[in-house]
């Protein structure tokens, strides 16, 4: 007798396919940390020997750190504002009856399908026409524009996924709209808020085209790295930086998964 039900039985060819898929996806990525410890300027086999000098060079490179700081600033601000806008938008779309809702949602979601280069050029023209200097602020503006649809798409299922009667119960018990939002709605959608924040941060952090058009003299990290690629001698320290970012990403994803586990947000508001 089989222990697993029909639907649980695994399929060997699909198993092999899944493993090959994962290998194909991640092995090239793993070359990054590998070559970052390789004692050679060119990223090629055979490996020459172990070194940490690229990391030392990276730590000593002030422009690189400036770019990294810029990207974190832009990413954090973008993620915060896009998520806040996403919360408002998702609540409006899922809760209120209003005329012209579908067209509004369509327009908000449009940046998902408009090529970044078009949006970048359009924003560049707008910003220069208005006489605004290009800076990290303009980059942040562009990044918010492309992040809000992702924030909405992450948050709408969360809002739809919880019963409206929770909010009604809150109102029934004496809470006004503001109080209900803070004490019921936000805690219930919190995993979505966190997911949206991390997603928007990631989108902003590795976005290139918009930043390329909208950045002034302060480059974000992708633009800095792109600039470095023209100088082969500088490439190994970019690999070292890439390896560091990879490590941080893994930690972030791990934290996000851990926070999003069932029941993780229980203790947010236990006061009566």
């Amino acid at each position: 007798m089989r222990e697993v039900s029909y639907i649980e039985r695994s399929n060997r060819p699909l198993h092999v396919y899944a493993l090959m898929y994962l290998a194909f996806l991640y092995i090239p990525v793993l070359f990054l940390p590998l070559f970052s410890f390789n004692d050679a300027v060119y990223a090629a086999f055979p490996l020459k020997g172990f070194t940490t000098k690229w990391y030392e060079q990276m730590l000593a490179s002030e422009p690189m750190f400036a770019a990294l700081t810029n990207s974190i600033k832009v990413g954090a601000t973008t993620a915060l504002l896009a998520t806040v806008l996403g919360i408002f938008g998702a609540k409006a779309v899922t809760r209120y009856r209003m005329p012209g809702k579908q067209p509004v949602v369509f327009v908000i979601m449009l940046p998902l399908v408009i090529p970044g280069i078009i949006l970048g050029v359009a924003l560049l023209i707008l910003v220069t026409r208005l006489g605004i200097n290009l800076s990290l602020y303009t980059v942040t503006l562009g990044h918010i524009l492309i992040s809000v649809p992702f924030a909405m798409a992450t948050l709408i299922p969360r809002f739809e996924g919880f019963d409206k009667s929770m909010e009604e119960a809150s109102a029934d018990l004496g809470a006004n709209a503001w109080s209900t939002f803070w004490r019921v709605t936000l805690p219930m959608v919190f995993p979505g808020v966190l997911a949206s924040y991390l997603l928007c941060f990631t989108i902003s952090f590795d976005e290139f085209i918009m930043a390329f058009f909208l950045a002034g003299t302060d480059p974000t990290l992708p633009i800095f790295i792109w600039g470095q690629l023209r100088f082969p001698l500088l490439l190994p320290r970019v690999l070292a930086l890439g390896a560091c970012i990879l490590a941080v990403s893994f930690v972030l994803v791990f934290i996000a998964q851990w926070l999003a586990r069932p029941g993780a947000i229980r203790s947010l508001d236990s006061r009566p």
Partner: protein
Amino acid sequence: MSNNDAFIILTGVSKHFGPVVAVDDINLTISGGEFFSLLGPSGCGKTTLLRMLAGFESPTSGEIFIDDAPMSEVPPYQRPTNMVFQNYAIFPHLNVRANIGYGLRYDKLSKAELDRRIDESLEMVKLPGFGTRRSEELSGGQRQRVALARALVKRPKVLLLDEPLGALDKKLREEMQLELRALQESVGITFIFVTHDQEEALTLSDRVAVMARGKALQVASPQQLYNCPVSIEVADFIGQMNFIDARVIEVEGERAVLEARGLGRVRAVASADFVRQGAQVVVAVRPEKLSLSYESSSDGRCSVQGEMKTAAYLGDRSHIYVTVDGCEKPLSVAAQEVESSSGQPIERGSEVWISWADESLVLLPVA
């Protein structure tokens, strides 16, 4: 309470959702401390009416008064009502204590008073010691108690209940019915209870409003509803009923003589003024008001001969279906045991006599 006999007044309350009329010109008066049920099939407007009382919907026209105050402009969080939701709506991110105490934050109580009120209400719903449990650690019955405690701890003037027993299994539901009734008597406030289960409404309520298509068809006590329904629709919804077309032959004061299809000449109480000489009416009679025998009745009761068709066994009784010449549908007769006086079980196709008392016939207008 100022005006206890008319504690809640609904005057001409209607609710339209676009072209759909969910609630149609309801006029009701509910007294303080009454257990009042809104009974009807799904889509009859009972839940919409309850939601208008809670303040989640506002009437398209008409006005609701609670304790003499008009409610149209009062938001849910300022109304003297609290609600037990159909799915209980227990906040999943809060424990039982925090759920019950949720609304007390707005009542500006001292910490000690707050704790005392929460303990008291946990005691009341028989869940002491459950304070630190999460909603997912509770059974359906326990959630329902938490929802009750959370609403009652606010000391509302009116408790609204939206099919709160619908999700429970039959045994637990019957247990909760008794508890709910006892609870209502002990707190002494008005309960407005929405249900589609006629048995539940009859068991619990002081009065019941039977609703269909947004209208209140009849508002009466359970006994009145069962024994004296005012229309075929109400009679059909509450329990089982046999309907027989009839024509009024003559009316003498309170008594009417009718010619009923299949039954012949019958006498009944002329209950309302639609019972006029020559009028077409419907004679309604409950299965348990009919009795079955092998012989023609000798005690002066009216009787008619028929042929047994099928029997439906219901445990505590059986419904026996008897075809009578001239009657459209077989008559349903309730019997404790399906056997004749001589102890022989009644077989399909047997000739039987059905008899009844004049008072058990109810006359209804043709639909």
